[in-house]
């Protein structure tokens, strides 16, 4: 199994499909703007949230730096509280471990709250292949699970579907024979609630991701607005929390600073509706919580990022703020990226986790270098520089066409001297006269935009003529 699943369609197909999808275009514009405006307003009216962000960023960087020690500490603590910890290096290791627990407990039905990491390791496919009934419970994830699709936004997985499509989907997949399904959004939500409620009550195993893992106390924090993660952590007998190792934070102080950031940056709330803080399985005298709690700590390529030039990317808290401001994401949505991680963070993370062969085109084709992502990122991850750096890798690995590569080389050589620059002006005028403009890079411009002409007298030529004899 690959480290990171990849949409086999090539970029131009993914791109054009997205650009022609009018439902996607409308919803995407609405969702990204709404979330972004909410983010800006939330920090503006909450100075202590901004102050906490700055502290959280610094401590998160340190936590990543020291994660070896901290992960050991977290494991010790979880074990001491009666939980079980599994370190998993690969997607297969996660699948095998979860299946083994499921077998021990004769699990038939699994309910899940939203988790990017389980998308990354294709857990649903692994569990379903073994005959388990797996149910996503976040409304958006539920919709795309029924449609056999991938999330189009970290926070709004079904952002590409409208109410009519969802109504038809429910009728075709989960509605009982003859059951009426309304197109009203409120009603569609109620319908999903009722269907999923049955799943919650009958599930034997719950699976969640985790927003944070606190080393000091061995605590996992899960944040949702719908309340589905609360159901997943409260109802089934067995709970498995699957967490990327970069989710580690040092201690309770660090948690206090960072705990609000996903909601502030992601949806513009000071906290999401539900924050679940798990530090162990059900205490004997307590009404609820899982009888057994497993925490799977996933590497899957993260150790390779650690200690290298892209280490800051491990500070990501998956808030989605960079997606909402990215001009390219606003056009093509999550499916354009062909990876479960989309937007600017996906542009960096996907090639790092899944390799340049699979995702090398993301840095080149899905970034205009506008820096909006860096400005929006609560953890101040220098995404634009990381994207430039990945482009450098693509160049050094000769992933561009020979024509383009040569063009950059000649261009760079020529313009590194005044004489070369002047020669290129002459050459450009000649090409213009001969109408040879449809080669290499320039060809990309011409189909949709009028090409500017090199001036008959450039500014420098004019200046030189007028000031030749020191007349200034």
């Amino acid at each position: 199994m690959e480290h990171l699943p990849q949409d086999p369609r090539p970029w131009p197909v993914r791109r054009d499909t997205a650009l022609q999808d009018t439902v996607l275009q409308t919803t995407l514009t609405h969702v990204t703007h709404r979330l972004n405006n909410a983010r800006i307003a939330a920090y503006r009216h909450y100075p202590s949230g901004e102050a906490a962000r700055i502290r959280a960023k610094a401590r998160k960087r340190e936590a990543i730096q020291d994660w070896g020690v901290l992960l050991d500490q977290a494991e010790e603590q979880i074990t001491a509280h009666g939980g079980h910890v599994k370190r998993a290096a690969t997607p297969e290791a996660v699948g095998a471990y979860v299946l083994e627990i499921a077998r021990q407990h004769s699990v038939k039905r699994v309910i899940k709250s939203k988790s990017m990491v389980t998308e990354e390791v294709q857990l649903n496919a692994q569990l379903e292949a073994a005959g388990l009934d797996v149910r996503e419970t976040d409304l958006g994830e539920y919709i795309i699970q029924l449609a056999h699709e991938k999330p189009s936004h970290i926070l709004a997985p079904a952002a590409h579907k409208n109410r009519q499509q969802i109504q038809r989907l429910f009728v075709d997949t989960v509605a009982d024979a003859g059951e009426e399904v309304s197109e009203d959004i409120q009603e569609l939500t109620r319908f999903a609630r009722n269907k999923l409620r049955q799943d919650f009550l009958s599930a034997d195993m719950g699976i969640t991701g985790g927003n944070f893992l606190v080393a000091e106390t061995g605590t996992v924090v899960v944040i949702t607005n719908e309340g589905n993660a609360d159901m997943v952590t409260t109802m089934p007998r067995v709970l498995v929390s699957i967490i990327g190792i970069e989710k580690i934070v040092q201690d309770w102080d660090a948690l206090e600073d960072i705990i609000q950031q996903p909601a502030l940056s992601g949806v513009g709330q000071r906290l999401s509706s539900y924050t679940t803080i798990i530090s162990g399985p059900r205490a004997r005298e307590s009404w609820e919580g899982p009888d057994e709690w497993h925490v799977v700590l996933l590497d899957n390529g993260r150790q390779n990022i650690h200690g290298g030039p892209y280490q800051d990317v491990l500070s990501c808290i998956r808030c989605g703020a960079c997606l909402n401001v990215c001009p390219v994401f606003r056009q093509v949505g999550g499916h354009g990226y062909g990876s479960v991680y989309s937007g600017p963070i996906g542009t960096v993370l996907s090639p790092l986790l899944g390799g340049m062969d699979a995702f090398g085109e993301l840095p080149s084709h899905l970034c205009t270098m506008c820096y909006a992502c860096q400005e929006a990122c609560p953890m101040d991850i220098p995404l634009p520089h990381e994207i430039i750096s990945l482009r450098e890798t693509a160049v050094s690995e000769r992933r561009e066409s020979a024509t383009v590569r040569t063009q950059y080389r000649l261009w760079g050589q020529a313009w590194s001297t005044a004489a070369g620059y002047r020669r290129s002006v002459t050459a450009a005028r000649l090409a213009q006269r001969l109408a040879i403009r449809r080669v290499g890079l320039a060809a990309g411009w011409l189909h949709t935009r009028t090409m500017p002409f090199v001036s008959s007298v450039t500014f420098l030529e004019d200046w030189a003529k007028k000031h030749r004899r020191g007349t200034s």
Partner: protein
Amino acid sequence: MTDNSSAFSTQWQSLGGQAYPVATPNDWLPSLRAVLSTMIEPTTPAVVGFDNGQWPPGLPWNAICEEFGGVFYDMNSLYGESHLQAVRDLVTQAGVGITGAAWAAADTGTVALYATARTSLSASLLPPSHLILLKQSQIYETVTQGLKAVHASGSLPHLVKLISGPSMTADIEGQLVIGVHGPGHVACLIGDW
């Protein structure tokens, strides 16, 4: 009302919750009647209450609920492992869950519940309505202070839940809908006793 109470109420309401001040201990009865009259539905008459030792004493819960067609279940009478399934079944059927809280925070409009022998998290989650009884002295100015209290309690509760408003989603066309998996109707009664 204290500063923290009124700041909490404002923030809680802005999130879509309801908050009612209870001015004097004598006002608990009329306040409860007012809020339960809007919560109890004839199709789901069960009202489950988990008194965590933080409730105002001496209230006629059975009578209040009956007045609006509800049936009150004092869950603490079911204490013990052997009643686990019975409790779950009851909560699953209930139309209203009533709980106290471990603490609340004004700046985020948050109510914190710990999973203990006397508190049920599912009562705050499964029924369509959730009523929280809150003492003014339980309300911190910030959620950070509340979190510090969780940690300072020595042994961490195995499950802590922070509720900041009703269950909601915007997963269909980005349109906000209240009450997905958790309750859509969340109300706090805030007073002293």
